[in-house]
């Protein structure tokens, strides 16, 4: 009776929830799950921590220390003799290799491999014998994590065994070579975003206009819009950039690579977003246009007050996806030879590689692109889910 009253009270306080029917758990499945997590934690977090520790507390960087590590030097024939020469940039990656070859890393990798494979074996044995759904899921998750830890540990053991690791670290992870270029990368990121944002803005304005023309009932109005859209969708972006840059220069109109980029990205995005807007407008129920027209609105008034505002909300996710694509496509202006002060991120990386022959510049550019695009990709997912639940559709954005 009293219990019932308490239940009642709790129910009115918080929203009623569906019962949890996954069932309880037991020490065995929990320990298998923990072992899986432990194995993968060892190999990933352990390796990262070791790298960090060596970065700050590792042996002082000197060529003599690097020489004690295999793979940091190469054999160069000189006359009749063969001498050892440090590989370019070896100093910058010395601590990476040192950490990888340390005893601590060895212990870590073997431990992860053994725990990992043991977890897999245990999981295979036990998962069908678990009495509840929750326990079975825990056992399976532990086994999967264990197998991942095992594979990663084996890979790292193999990877560090030869000279390959050193070569790889030198070529891709030699962050020392970036020391003078951080400012250039930040500036490059700024120009990348400016190019993409400018192109997207111009493209949206152009695209909306084109979509309205393309939706006209009159062929004479539709035709030019279709020709434009098909042309810009049907030719390579790199062709458009090149032709506008060199072609316009040939006609006496000298635009900088950055200006050409803004122009061409706007024209190109205009064509793509026209199709997005067209689809968005066509997705609005016919009744909306009929309601607006039956109130005496002209076609354009109906578009402006009833159809387009609704269509714009619906096309926000695809337009944002296009923006992400455009951010990456800005790299194409590299073919125009961007001047030093207007370089975007990829040009910075390209120039860095040209002067150092080291691919770490490309890695840095990738990190830069991801820093910009990943939050946007998350945002698209968020907006899409809001639209799907109808929240955005009904009340504002």
């Amino acid at each position, binding site marked *: 009776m009293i219990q019932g009253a308490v239940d009642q009270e709790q129910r009115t306080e918080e929203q009623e929830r569906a019962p949890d029917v996954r069932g309880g758990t037991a020490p065995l499945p929990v320990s298998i799950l923990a072992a899986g997590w432990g194995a993968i934690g060892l190999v990933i977090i352990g390796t990262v921590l070791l790298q960090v520790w060596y970065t700050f507390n590792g042996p002082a960087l000197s060529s003599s220390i690097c020489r004690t590590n295999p793979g940091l030097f190469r054999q160069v024939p000189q006359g009749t003799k063969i001498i050892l020469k440090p590989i370019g940039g070896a100093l910058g990656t010395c601590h990476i290799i040192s950490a990888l070859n340390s005893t601590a890393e060895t212990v870590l990798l073997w431990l992860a491999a053994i725990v990992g494979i043991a977890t897999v074996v245990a999981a295979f044995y036990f998962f069908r014998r678990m009495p509840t759904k929750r326990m079975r899921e825990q056992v399976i998750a532990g086994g999967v994590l264990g197998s991942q830890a095992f594979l990663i540990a084996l890979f790292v053991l193999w990877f560090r065994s030869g000279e390959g690791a050193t070569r790889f670290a030198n070529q891709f992870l030699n962050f020392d070579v970036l020391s003078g270029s951080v400012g250039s990368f930040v500036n490059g990121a700024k120009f990348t975003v400016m190019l993409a944002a400018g192109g997207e803005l111009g493209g949206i304005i152009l695209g909306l206009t084109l979509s309205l023309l393309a939706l006209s009932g009159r062929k004479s109005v539709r035709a030019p819009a279709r020709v434009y859209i098909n042309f810009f969708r049907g030719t390579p972006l790199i062709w458009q950039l090149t032709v506008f840059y060199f072609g316009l220069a040939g006609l006496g109109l000298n635009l900088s690579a950055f200006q050409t980029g803004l122009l061409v990205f706007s024209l190109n995005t205009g064509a793509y977003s026209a199709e997005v807007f067209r689809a968005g407008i066509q997705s609005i129920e016919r009744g909306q246009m009929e309601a607006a027209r*039956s109130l*005496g609105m002209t076609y354009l008034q109906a578009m402006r007050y*009833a159809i387009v505002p609704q269509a714009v909300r619906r096309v926000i996710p695809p337009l944002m996806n296009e923006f992400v694509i455009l951010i990456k496509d800005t790299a194409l202006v590299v073919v125009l030879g961007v001047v030093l002060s207007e370089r975007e991120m990829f040009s910075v990386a390209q120039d860095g590689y040209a002067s150092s022959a080291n691919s770490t510049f490309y890695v840095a550019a990738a990190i830069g692109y991801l820093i910009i695009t990943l939050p946007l990709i998350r945002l698209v997912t968020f907006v899409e889910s809001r639209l799907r639940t109808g929240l955005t559709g009904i009340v504002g954005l």
Partner: protein
Amino acid sequence: MSDTGGSLVELQNIHKWFGDLHVLKGIDVSIDPKQVVVVIGPSGSGKSTLLRCINVLEMPTQGKVIFDGEDITDIRTNVNKVRTHIGIVFQAYNLFPHKTVMQNITIALEKVLGVNGSEANDRAMEQLKRVGLEHKAQAHPGQLSGGQQQRVAIARALAMRPKLMLFDEVTSALDPELVKEVLDTMKQLAEEGMTMVIVTHEMGFAREVGTRLLFMDDGKILEDGEPRAIFENPGDDRCRDFLSHVL
């Protein structure tokens, strides 16, 4: 100005084709002011198309629609202006989901009729009171029940102060318990003397509120007369068959 003998709407030999589908096959009807014309008939008989020809939402393939003495099927007629005098309410409400109830009503007043903001608000409020939804003025359509949305749609049409109201199966999409509130609003409107053309499947309502009944089948009007008389003694075989199925 009227050269049609006092009628508000006159349909002259209306034919409508959708592609090769012959939907209306020669409709001649004239509707006088204050008449409440109820149109019934099996689905696919052309009732809705006929209704939508009256405000030329569908342009008849052949024939003329004379509204208030003006041939509105003439290509030189400004149909946008004509439509401000003809309200229509749809089966699917067709409210603008991105606007509030108030904005749904005021948008056409302001942008089409050029009524200024505060007067538009007053006129909208007046109609919302008539349909009993003044407290929902700031809600969005998605927050209302189907019956409430349909009453807003009626208020939106009435705020234009039309001479004629068209109702296109306005209760067909409603849950049974919401039908009455919409029918009551329409009944009240009929009592106030509004000229109305109502396509409906609500036979009780047709009989009670209608002053004239049209039975359509296969794109033609087969019965035209006093609702009670037709319900009690249908002259046409197909009408009798239809009524025996729905009553």
